[in-house]
Structure formats: C-alpha cells, structure tokens
C-alpha cells in the first residue's frame, strides 16, 4: 500500500484555477520533490495534503485513511503529517524546547518528562541541543528552520511536507538545513519537498514533479528530469533555476 495517494485534486481561488487535476503517489521512505514556477500551485498542493486548504474535488489518502473524508478526525490525522514552512513559524513566546515539546504534550498528551526527552532527542538530531533555552528571535534563520524540523519530528510523523524550507534563508545558512533534510531522507523518512534547490533534488529525490499551471507537466527520477527533460517548458524552467541556484548540492559544500 502506498503511504500517500493524491487523486485528481482540483482547487480554485475565485476564478483562478490553482490546481487542475493533480494525482501522485508516494511510497513509504520515498522523497518527492516538487518544482515549478511560482504561482503554479505547489504550496496549495502541499496544503491540500494536510487539509490546511480544502480541495474543491479530489481525494487524498494517508496510509489507507482518507484525509479528505469529512468523517476523518483531521486534527488527529494532522498529528501524523509534519509540515515545515518557508518562514519557520515557530511560536514566538516559547523557548526552543517548548516549541518542540508542545506538540507531543498538548496533542498527544505525553507527560512532560517523556515529551522533554523526545524533544531533546530531536533537537540533538538537528544539531541544536545547545539552544534549548533560547527564544526563536535569538536564533539565525537556519537554526530556526532546524528547530521547526525538530518540532515536526517530535510528533513522529509518517510524512513530512516541506514548503520551500530554504527560500527565506541567507545563502550561507541554506546548507545546514539541507543537510538535516538529506539526513532525514536517507534515514527512511517520507518527504514531500517543494523547493528550488536542484542540488538537493538531485542527491536525495526519488522522483521529481514539475508542476505548471496547476497540472503535473512531467514526473520522473531526478537524473532523467535534470538531464533530459521531456518538455520544452521544463527545460526552460530548469535552465533558469540552475542559472540562479547553481548545480551542486549546497549540503555537500558544507
């Protein structure tokens, strides 16, 4: 059974058709990277998976449970889908440790001691065990994003969605976040990543989706996507992107 199944998702905001029949699947442990020009529905697609945005039609299944079924307890289901945002979205008034353990404590009702251990374990994993007592505003963007990854991990999710996780970061901070994401991908976590980081996609994606105008224009393994894209649109886009972001994985540089 597939871990994630997205079937014919459509969504429009007013007269703007953002998603126009998108279907895709993800096996457990796979990493899927979604690329495409801005405004083509990449973020909306991610948000339809955990129902932050309600699709107009189409269905989504996670691990055999239909996410889009109105009878599904969406709060419970969301606790097994992590999400990492472009702007980190850490809770301003909470220390790093509290940001990470608030999910396990308040949603899963795990007692404070266990939740703390869990949070420390995840913070260690993203390399921030020395920052537990800091507030988000005292951290760099890269550190904040790693905290937000730890926050997602602390829920022990089946799947993590990344919505342009490095787009708001200074160039020299991108590597540390990508390195954590690569580590996750390699350890068998299932990831769906919207990103322009071609290097990351190259080195860890099992499959790359090129989304344009709310449709999947092309879907193939990275080596194929990046060396011999089928469509001219994909070629043009990749050309622009590689020009801007470079070929090599930044994680490898650091």
């Amino acid at each position, binding site marked *: 059974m597939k871990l994630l199944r997205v079937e014919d998702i459509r969504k429009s905001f007013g007269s703007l058709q953002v998603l126009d029949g998108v279907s895709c699947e993800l096996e457990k442990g796979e990493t899927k990277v979604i690329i495409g020009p801005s405004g083509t529905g990449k973020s909306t697609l991610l948000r339809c998976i*955990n129902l*932050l945005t309600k699709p107009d039609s189409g269905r989504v299944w996670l691990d055999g449970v239909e996410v889009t079924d109105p009878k599904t307890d969406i*709060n*419970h*289901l*969301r*606790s097994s*889908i*992590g*999400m990492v*945002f472009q*702007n980190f*979205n*850490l*809770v*301003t*008034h909470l220390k790093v440790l509290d940001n990470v353990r*608030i*999910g396990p404590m*308040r*949603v*899963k009702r795990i007692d404070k001691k266990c939740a703390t251990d869990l949070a420390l374990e995840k913070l260690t994993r993203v390399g921030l065990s020395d920052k537990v007592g*800091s*507030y*988000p*505003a*005292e*951290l760099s963007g890269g550190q904040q994003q790693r905290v*937000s990854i730890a*926050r997602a991990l602390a*829920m022990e999710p089946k799947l993590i969605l990344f919505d342009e996780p490095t787009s708001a970061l200074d160039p020299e901070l991108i590597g540390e976040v990508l390195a954590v994401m690569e580590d996750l991908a390699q350890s068998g976590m299932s990831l769906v990543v919207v990103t322009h980081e071609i290097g990351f996609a190259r080195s860890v994606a099992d499959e790359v989706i090129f989304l344009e105008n709310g449709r999947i224009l092309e879907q193939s393994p990275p080596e194929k996507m990046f060396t011999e894209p089928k469509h001219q649109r994909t070629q043009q886009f990749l050309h622009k992107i590689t020009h801007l972001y470079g070929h090599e994985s930044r994680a490898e540089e650091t």
Partner: protein
Amino acid sequence: MNLMFDWSWLGPLGRGFLVTFELTLIAVSAGFVFGLVLAVGRVYGNRPIRLLSTTYLTFFRGTPMLVQIFIIYFGLPSVGIMLSSFTSAILALTLNSAAYQAEYFRGSILAVSKDEMLAVRTLGMTPLQAIRHVVIPQTLRMVIPSWCNQLVNLLKFSSLVYMIRVPELMYQGRLLAMFTYRSFEIFLIVGMMYLGTVVVLSRILRVLERKVRIPGLGAKGA
C-alpha cells in the same frame, strides 16, 4: 488664601480609598475574563457569536457609564432585579470595563502571527488549543501598555458610583466637604490619592511589561 488640613479626614478618605481599590480590582479582573471571551468570540467566533459580541461592545462603549450605572441600580428593580448599590457598582464597572478590554484584546489578537497558529494546527492542535497556547499568551504580553490605560480609566471612572451612594473615595470626599466646607483641600487630597494610585499602578505594569518581554524581540530599552 489659607489652606487647612485635618488629620481626622484621613480615616474616612482611607476607608473610601479601600472601597475604590476593591471596586476597581474586582471589576478589572472580572472584566478581564469577560473581555477576553468577548474578544476571542469577536475574532474567531461564527456569525451569531460575532454579532452578539459586537452588539455588546457597541452598547457599552456607546453609552455613558453613568447611564449604565443608573440602568442597573434604578432600572433593574422595575423588572424585579434588586441589587445592592455595591453589587450594582461592581456589575456596571465590570460590564463597562469588559467592553473596553475586549477591544484592546482584539487589537492584540490580530497582531499575533497567523502563521504560528497555522503551524500548531499542523501539529494537530484544535483551534481552541491554538488560541489557548499560541494566541492568548502573546496577546496578553502585547496588550499590557493599552490595558494599563483601561485600568487607570476604570479607577477614575469608579468615582461615578458615588451617585448611587457607594461609600468609595469620591463619596467620602463629598461627605467630608459637606460637613467641613473645605471642598478645595479635600478634593485636592482626593485627587492626589487617585493620582498616586495611577502612578503606582502604571509603574507596576511597566515592570510587568519588561518582565514578560520576549528575549530577542522588539526594540531594546523601549
């Protein structure tokens, strides 16, 4: 002009001050809870709740507090609700304060980042949990400066309840002035007592504001 002060005034004025303080403290606390509910209802509630909350605010912010006090004390008995003057005063001050506090809370709630709320919703929190754990704690921090305004106003406006013979500071001052014909001195003292309380309360809130400031955020020393 020769001013005259009499130490024996301090007894009644002191007693009056304690009543004023009690009125303000109870009304501001009860108004705090009610105001928070109103504000959350107005921002996050469905249509009927929003409408209810807005109507309430419009009425209590749109009519003079003295009218509200008189409606409760002189008006309610005609529908069979008799309240003592003290209870009427507490009720009127609470309901009025709640309306103003609600507006301050609403302003601060709107200033809390929606993205943070979104992030904890993706952890599986219900809307109420997100409000409780993300929105309210930040709202309360941000609201302190404007909330201080409301506290100070309430303290001063509580003097209106002398009209329904609650023996608070203003009432005691008037009584003394009537007996001694020393209005100028007495109301000067009464005024200083209000002023002193306002200054002390503002100081306390300023310290609190500094204490709960989130490290790394905002202008230093502001």
